[in-house]
């Protein structure tokens, strides 16, 4: 017993010294950070990066709001960045410390959630679309009707990822509305459409990289990078970009207002904007990165992947989801709750 209490004491004291120099605390989505990237960063700068995982934007926000978290960098999604800014949780960047800031690709520089990239630098971006197994269905993949009005071959075989914003936005754009709309006519159509479609679904679940690859699920609403990995295991999996409109998303690295390792944090942000390193970021989670010049360093299998390169004719259908007003959010939640019953 005595030995155990020593162990406990050692545990407590060792953790309290976590903020020695040369450390960086990265608060990021789980399974999203390439260990090779961190090893390279440590080799170059001597800074040891510790990752702590979160599983949703809301969890991350709640923990940082409560204070005393000890994190330096966080990686919120685009539609959450304005919330972090308006709550004063992240600080404006000193661009003079980011010599590679100019490497941000022009289309990712002046984004709606952070004009001129004054608060955040790109991490990874992708799309939420639909995927099908071509052995079950060989028609057009680039449409949300795959899950909103499934063709006969797919009835009872479709999965819908349980992501409220993505699913409701897909349905809203399908009926011709704008994501985060407060128009009750449109919302009613969205609600009716989803409620009518639900009996034709198989499940509302995550883990589709495995299930699509294993032929357990024949179609699913899912993220492009995850479907890319499924296709590498099972060539019959095909990703589609709904022409009626589909959500784009981007997660960006931001500096917390009460970060304790500010210099180290700037070094890390500058480091990931080097094209070669940005390619390392992509090589692990399999999403594009938003840094100019990273293409030559990308893994060969990603260079021409249809899940990563959006076809020109479907580019315009991709939309970043805005930050919904409280009222729109309440409507969406009501529809979502009904759908979950």
């Amino acid at each position, binding site marked *: 017993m005595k030995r*155990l209490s020593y162990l*406990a004491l050692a545990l*407590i004291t060792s953790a309290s010294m976590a903020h020695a120099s040369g450390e960086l605390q990265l608060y990021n989505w789980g399974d999203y950070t390439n260990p090779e990237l961190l090893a390279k960063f440590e080799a170059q700068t001597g800074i040891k990066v510790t990752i702590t995982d979160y599983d949703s934007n809301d969890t991350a926000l709640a*923990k940082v709001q409560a204070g005393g978290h000890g994190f330096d960098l966080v990686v919120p999604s685009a539609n959450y960045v304005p919330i972090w800014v308006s709550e004063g949780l992240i600080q404006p960047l000193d661009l003079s410390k980011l010599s590679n800031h100019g490497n941000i690709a022009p289309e990712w520089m002046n984004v709606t959630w952070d004009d001129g990239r004054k608060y955040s630098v790109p991490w990874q971006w992708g799309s939420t679309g639909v995927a099908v197994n071509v052995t079950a269905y060989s028609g057009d993949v680039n449409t949300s009707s795959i899950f909103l009005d499934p063709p006969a071959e797919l009835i009872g075989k479709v999965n819908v990822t349980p992501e409220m914003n993505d699913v409701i936005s897909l349905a809203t754009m399908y009926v011709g509305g704008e994501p985060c709309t407060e128009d009750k006519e449109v919302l009613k159509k969205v609600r009716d459409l989803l409620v009518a479609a639900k009996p034709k679904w198989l499940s509302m679940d995550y883990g589709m990289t495995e299930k699509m690859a294993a032929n357990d699920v024949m179609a699913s609403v899912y993220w492009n990078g995850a479907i890319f990995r499924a296709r590498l295991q099972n060539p019959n999996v095909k990703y589609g970009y709904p022409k009626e409109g589909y959500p784009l998303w981007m997660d960006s690295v931001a500096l917390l207002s009460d970060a304790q390792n500010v210099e180290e944090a700037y070094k890390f942000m500058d480091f990931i904007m080097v094209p070669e390193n940005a390619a390392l970021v992509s090589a692990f989670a399999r999403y594009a990165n938003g840094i100019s010049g990273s293409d030559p360093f990308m893994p060969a299998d990603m260079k021409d992947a249809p899940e990563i390169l959006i076809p020109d004719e479907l580019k315009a259908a991709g939309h970043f989801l805005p930050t919904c007003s409280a009222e729109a959010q309440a409507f969406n939640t009501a529809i979502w709750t009904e759908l979950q019953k």
Partner: protein
Amino acid sequence: MVRKEFSIAKLPGFSLIAVIVFVALYLPIMMLVIYSFNSGKSVAIWEGFSLQWYVKAWANEQVKEVTLRSVGLALSAATFSTIAATLAALGTTRRPAFKGQMAIFALINQPLMVPEIVTAVALLIFFGALKQFTGYQGMGYLVAAHTAFCIPFAYLPIQARLNGMDNTLETAAADLYGRSFQIFRRITLPLLMPGILAGFMLAFVTSLDDVVITLFVKSAGQDTLPTYMLAQIRRSITTEVNAISTVLLAATVLLLILFFILTKKKN
């Protein structure tokens, strides 16, 4: 004539229900163990036998780090909560019934009654303020939180053991002029040991698999194995997770066998 004794095992459908229950309990776990030896990447397609996921998990620094942290945390929390629970059990049973006894029981067992998410949010806010005020963000918060919710799990077996032990031996020892501490040390504690061990194991396991409270209390660099696995699942469930789970499962089974042998000897 011998009257037929009542036996649950002879009720109709007994074996059928027993088999269904065991299958429901253990089949998913068996699948998990089997697929941990899959040579392919998938948790759903069998591609042949291999130990590669064990090798990969072992080579994954983050997995090692979070596993060690989980075990260290569970050991500390189980130790502290077992000490507190032993004292509480002695205080509530080795004496005549007293006024407010039920209230004390309710207070001790509070973590069993209050929904975990409520405790978690309360701790998030309270510890958040405390972390800012003191500047200390170490593992102490997780140890404290885990100790608190593990107390009832350690308390219940210890209290049950005490209730099952009459105090004739202690009374005899007192008759022979044993001092209170001597009696406790030589009589009560050895007799109570199986209960304390059972309490410790329960507390250990409870702490080891906690997600909700840990998620809300953890500071930078304090992921435990369950929070690490939770964050993985949204992206992809890899066979590596199966391998880690299987190792944990084996460790738990070993622990239980050890515990069984230990208590068997004492009895």
